[in-house]
């Protein structure tokens, strides 16, 4: 907001954008590829990469002292606000290496006494060592990621490229299923899985992903496939390639950014998922990280926050790593599709 007036004096080198903006289409990617592939009312996803690149720096003109002070104040405010936002997280990290008693007395970030025993105690506090629960979570995450990648890309190809009977209706059903709350179907699912004797196995958490029930990712990939030039597959068709070949040889390799986005979001959502894991996994041997943590908090009460924090930190590390290395895809995935 404060930049607006300054911006007027500095023309932006961004002519490509203006064509599509007035449609007021929701947040689209900024690249030329995106603008070129955009259909009316739908969200263009560029074929090459999601790209919400930073715009070129605006203020090339001479800064006055006043504007410099303003900018400094603004940065100070933003940094301060960011610090307040992250303070609870940092404090949890620092508390995890404090002696237990200090957690309730010391709001500062720097531990005055170091105590790493929280990690060893927490690791072994439950029936199994914590690595057991980490492994369980990883198995489910891996199965879910692979399942979503395969099943959703297959379905997306059909919706994006094949003309088949009733496509608009099926497409609408797919879109609506994105918004269906899991709570509405969980009871019959539970009954079905318990009759299959799948309760306390990982199957209820993985098999649905193999069946493309995370329709959101179908949609994400449909958008992406639509951005891939049709000439490519038409040329392949003329050369005699079938749909399977076009899908595996042309579409999938080009869709790597969409596949990466799918993998990353599936990872995070599955890792954080509590509701369905709580319901389908009641045997402590099968507990995943969230369910184990929850048992931990219920069993320890106020007595061992240190080790509880330590294991909470451990449980957040995989997400944090995915965040660090997958940030590009996360930010662009959200910007293009608008889902947390």
């Amino acid at each position, binding site marked *: 907001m404060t930049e607006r007036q300054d911006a007027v004096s500095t023309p932006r080198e961004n002519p490509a954008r203006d064509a599509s903006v007035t449609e007021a289409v929701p947040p689209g990617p900024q690249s030329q590829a995106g603008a070129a592939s955009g259909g009316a009312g739908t969200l263009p996803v560029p074929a090459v990469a999601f790209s919400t690149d930073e715009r070129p*720096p605006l203020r090339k003109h001479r800064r006055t002292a006043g504007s410099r002070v303003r900018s400094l104040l603004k940065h100070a405010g933003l940094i301060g606000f*960011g610090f307040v936002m992250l303070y609870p997280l940092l404090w949890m990290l620092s508390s995890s290496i404090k002696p237990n008693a200090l957690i309730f007395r010391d709001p500062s970030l720097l531990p005055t006494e170091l105590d790493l025993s929280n990690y060893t105690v927490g690791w072994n506090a439950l029936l199994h060592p914590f690595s057991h629960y980490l492994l369980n979570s990883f198995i489910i995450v891996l199965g879910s990621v692979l399942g979503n990648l395969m099943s959703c890309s297959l379905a997306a190809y059909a919706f994006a490229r094949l003309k088949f009977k009733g496509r608009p209706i099926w497409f609408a059903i797919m879109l609506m299923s994105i918004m269906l709350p899991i709570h509405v179907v969980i009871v*019959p699912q539970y009954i079905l899985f318990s009759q299959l004797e799948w309760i306390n196995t990982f199957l209820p958490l993985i098999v649905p992903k193999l069946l493309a029930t995370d329709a959101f990712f179908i949609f994400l990939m449909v958008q992406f496939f639509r951005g891939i030039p049709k000439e490519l597959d038409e040329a392949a068709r003329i050369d005699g390639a079938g749909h399977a070949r076009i899908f595996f040889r042309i579409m999938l390799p080009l869709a790597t950014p969409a596949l990466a986005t799918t993998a990353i979001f599936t990872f995070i959502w599955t890792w954080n998922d509590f509701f369905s894991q709580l319901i389908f996994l009641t045997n402590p041997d099968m507990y995943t990280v969230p369910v184990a943590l*929850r048992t931990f908090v219920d069993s320890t009460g106020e007595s061992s926050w240190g080790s509880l924090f330590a294991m909470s930190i451990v449980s957040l590390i995989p997400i944090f790593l995915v965040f660090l290395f997958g940030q590009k895809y996360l930010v662009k995935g959200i910007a293009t599709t608008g889902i947390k």
Partner: protein
Amino acid sequence: MSALGELAALRKTKGAKDTLSPSERGDNKAAIFFLAPWFIGLGLITAGPLLASLYLSFTDYSLLEAPSWIGIENYVRMLDDPRLHNSLVVTFTYVFVSVPLQLAAALGLAMVLDRGLRGLAIYRSVYYLPSLLGGSVAIAILWRQIFGTNGLVNQVLGIFGIQGQGWVSHPDYALGTLMILNVWTFGAPMIIFLAGLRQIPEMYYEASSIDGAGRVRKFVSITLPLLTPIIFFNLVLQVIGAFQAFTQAFVVSGGGGGPADSTLFYTLYLYQNGFRSFDMGYASAMAWLLLVIIAALTAANFFFSKYWVFYND
């Protein structure tokens, strides 16, 4: 606008039929192959259970014996179930207070971060991180401590000589702590707003500057109207999401929705009925009420969007 926009677009073109050329008829077979997993999933995991839960909502079923048909008894029971009414009040309060606050924070920060700010990528990441972690059990545990009697908040208040209370254990404040948690995750809608702000052509601002418009005027007359589709999109998404909040309340309250049912979210009560009491029939009826409520809220959002969402086409 993704799914919502597509649905709206589909509705507009409803009349147009897909006519298949002979060469395209072969696609039917291929489509069955490509869609096979999805069709099976739709039948067994999504649509089938959806219909099954409708049936179960008219039965009494505890998993042990076959469901017995009791007509609309579950729905009648909902009419005078005080805990259910309370859970609706709790959930609606949570949604209608925390979602607007969250979106206001998201929009405010997006406005500040827009326009070639140095270090934008870093700020964006820092503000976004809580969105990724906010739904986890670990953060819920952290919240339980922070807002506990001797938690971080009261320690900080203590520095200023204020004697705080156990926020999560007080019926008047427990829900508030969960709202703060939801507002804390404003990063995801903020990123959507940021992308939306970039779609606004600079020339609008330039033109209005020539006409002598100030910042406030530009915000009210240009930014806000052009951003309404995105505000709407965020609103629909966040309302649907907030209605399904579960983990935070479950962990912070130890599964009970306390103190005094003050954090008994609708989903939590549904879970208690279905998977603690194994009252599957009643839980199914609750599930359908949830579906109706979310559908109605979404429909209302769409209906009222006519009056405030500005589509410039």
